[in-house]
């Protein structure tokens, strides 16, 4: 069952949220879409729900009476960096969870899934600098630390995703998966270059652009005094939003389209979601897309 973002927010901890989102994403699925298909055997891994049952090592099962999955060379040790934009603008959320909360749900679910697969996942929470960093690990308590860090994240400061990407680029010395959660509303001009650099080093880069439905539709119906959220931004606008709605929707669509084109050119996967979309569905769409890419 896929829970909507409000239901997810009501769950007691980030660990539970992560598990619920992953279960929702895999509901009805018979294989782990994240598994590879290389022919060079590397190691065994204990079976987990979602793994392809065709790859169970039945001989090993006969010997130890437990199910193991064969893993191959390109599936091992894929380090994943989860980058979460925690700037002040990510704190916007009028009727549902904030964009930051929503990004945390998705990051937690991905971390949970990777931990289950035995893949190391790291977390970098940033605003204009790196606020919190957990390097990718596979040890037992790492996932707990990571989920706790996501639970404690709060919106503040300006956003500098380029700096965070540069930080990750220094540490990702092997082919890594870099997943960036941000709204791209005030993204600096050098972000596209940073994405290209990261991609040119052989890293797999995914950009989740998360927006509140208000930032897509502007569905206000009374005179409103809009004030900027970012620090040092004193802009404000007193306006009847109904006068601006159509124009705003065009601008919002243009922003998304611009980043979709930038990502396409940089061979970066661009995924867009609003905080009204069920996180499990967003996760499942992402996993399906990756499964198709790997096949």
């Amino acid at each position: 069952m896929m829970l909507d973002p409000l239901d997810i927010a009501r769950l007691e901890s980030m660990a539970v949220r992560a598990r619920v989102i992953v279960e929702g994403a895999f509901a009805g699925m018979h294989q782990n879409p994240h598994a590879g298909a290389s022919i060079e055997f590397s190691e065994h891994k204990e079976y987990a729900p979602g793994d392809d049952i065709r790859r169970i090592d039945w001989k090993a099962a006969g010997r130890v009476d437990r199910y193991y999955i064969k893993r191959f060379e390109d599936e091992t040790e894929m380090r994943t960096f989860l980058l979460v934009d925690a700037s002040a603008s990510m704190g916007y959320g009028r009727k549902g969870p904030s964009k930051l909360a929503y990004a945390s749900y998705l990051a937690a679910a991905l971390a949970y899934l990777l931990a289950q697969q035995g893949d190391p996942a790291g977390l970098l929470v940033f605003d204009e600098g790196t606020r919190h960093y957990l390097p990718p690990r596979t040890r037992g308590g790492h996932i707990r630390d990571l989920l706790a860090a996501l639970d404690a994240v709060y919106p503040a400061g300006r956003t500098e995703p380029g700096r965070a990407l540069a930080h990750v680029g220094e540490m990702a010395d092997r082919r890594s998966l870099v997943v960036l959660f941000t709204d791209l509303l005030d993204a600096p001009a050098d972000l596209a270059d940073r994405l290209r650099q990261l991609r040119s080093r052989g890293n797999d880069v995914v950009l989740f652009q998360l927006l509140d439905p208000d930032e897509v539709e502007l569905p206000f119906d009374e005179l409103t005094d809009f004030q900027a959220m970012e620090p040092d931004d004193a802009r404000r606008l007193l306006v009847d939003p109904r006068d601006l709605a159509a124009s705003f929707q065009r601008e919002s669509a243009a922003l998304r389209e611009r980043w979709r084109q930038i990502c396409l050119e940089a061979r970066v996967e661009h995924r867009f979601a609003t905080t009204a979309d069920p996180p499990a569905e967003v996760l499942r769409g992402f996993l399906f897309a990756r499964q198709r890419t790997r096949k």
Partner: protein
Amino acid sequence: MHFLAPALLLGLAAAVLPFIIHRIGRRRARPVRFAAMELLMRAEREVSARRRLRDALLLVARTAIAIALPLAFARPFAHVRSDLPAVAARSQSAVVVLDDSASMRRRAGGDPLFEAARARARALVEHLSPDSEVGLVLASEGAPAPVAELSGDRARVLGALAATAPSARRADFAGALRRATQILTGSPHADRLIYVVTDLQASGWEDVTPAAVAAGPEIVILDPSDGAPWENRAVTSLEAEPAPEEGAQGIAVVAEIANYAAAPARGLGITLRLDGAEVARGFVDVPAGGRAKKRFVHAVAGGAGTHQAEVVIDHDGFPLDDRRACRVEASRGLRVLIVDGDPRTVRTEDETFFLEAALRAGGSSFAITTILPDDLAGRDLEAFGAVFLANVSRPTPAAAAALLRYVEGGGGLFISVGDKVDADAWNQVAKAILPQPLGLKRSAAAPPGLHPEGETVDLRPAERLAPIDRRHPLLSAFPAKGEGLASARFFQFMLLSPVSDAPERQVVLRYESGGPALVEAEIGRGRVLLLTTTVDREWTDLPIRPGFLPLVQEAARFLAGAPSGEAAADLTVGDKREIALQGDDSRIEVVKPNGESRWLVPPTHAGEARARHVVLFTETDEPGLYRVRAARNDGAVSDRPDAAFVVTLDGRESNPARLADADRPDRAHAPGAAGPVPHRRLELWHALGAALLALALLESLLTLRFKRGRVAS
């Protein structure tokens, strides 16, 4: 500017309400910390110009509404100089005499002068003090009074005023002032005034005497033309006559054009229309203040019958008198051949002296040819509409045969007897053309009877005519008691041999003794009239009686199949017209020049077994040709061209001469008109109310438009 309710101006403070509401609205705006400010600012830049314009327009419109509302309720007004006399402001009884005569239909500055006159009268009625009483009278001859008694109901008077329309009749101020004076009689107010709204054309004031004006109520004249000069040209008369030089169907139409302007009219265009089609066009020069005649000669196509001729000159500001119509008889009937059976060297003793004089009299259109009996055989009778045989002793067989062919072919024959007539010879040779065989000559045995006072007394025994029957078309033009014929005395006459009754023969006139005086018979397609006495004074004094002329002229027209002279005569607007019913006519329809029609039924009086044979048409209110149709007892409806008639404008209405200042009736009363320069109140709140509505509409449209804009985008 002044206000009837100035206290309500306090409401002007509401003018700041839209601004305050706007400011309060801004303060009550919900603050929202928003992340996508950059997108918002871009969107704002895109629509800000349009939005600011809308906001400004709405603020202006709403502020204007807030100002206009209390302003309108405060009922603002201004004092402006009035063109009404100062006396109008007094409490009074007043009668407004509105000039609706034809001259008021002229255009002054683009609009008919009557409109300006009516507006002036309306302003006057509205300006009179509330306790004044008003009546309304029209100045044209015979017009009814729309408000014939004093009324305090101003709406009623204004309604009656609005319903008035200019007429084509002449003005009759004497009658209108009499009527106004009657209305003011018994008025409760001490001040009694008659306001005459007129262009002061001199025509129509002739019968207003200074004595009557001095004895009557005070008269105030309002001139809507403000004395502006009026230069007019008019067709003042139009006549048609035979033009033998153009053949049997030739006619000559003579128009008289008057130029009332101070400058001569050179090259004035003039057009002749016949039955609506333009047949000739020319130019005429008319001296300043003078008259000129234009003669058109034309051969009428389509044969004998009645036609309408109309002459039109280039239009000026008064087009009503720029055209004039008349009837044209294009018929051989207007050519008359007289055969003189007893010619004399002394003209007055000639048998046909009175006959010719009667046919030529009154500007008639008869073309007369007189011959002796011996010349009859060689004549082409077909060229004549009627042949008169006066005291012809005996026709030759050839002449009798020619006359019979002529009558059977549609000709008209009039036979009068005398001492030369050989009755036996007539009965033998020309029996076929006699309505009734001739008998013995007889002298009257009866005394002359009563005669009007002053008449020359002839002591010879004489007969008189029995009362006439006007149902016969020949006699329809005569008064009911036959005045003009009743006084005629007949000393000798010829008896007629008795014959059996026949539908084609009838006695038109009888003597008191019962003998036939005038007998009509239809023979073939023609008619014969037989007069049993002479057309000179030898046997009768009829030729010197007033009835002789119309009798002879009507007989000539009747025989020729031409319309009666009475019918052909022109009427002036407002005249009445008697129309005789023929045969089994049951109703008469008169079609006016504007196409409207009226059905007329002859009235039946108590004690009369059958309806009278004439109807009276009174609505001759427009100049032009009035067509006549008759409905028979069997339901069939047919044209009566013989009864059609032309109505013309009274020529006096064309004369722009103004009433001299010395003759103006408002100068008879010294006081009253003088006084301080009057002012009138110009009410502004109506315009303000209209502006308020327009502003509200503008505000709604603006709001609606921007709401629609949002939905569409």
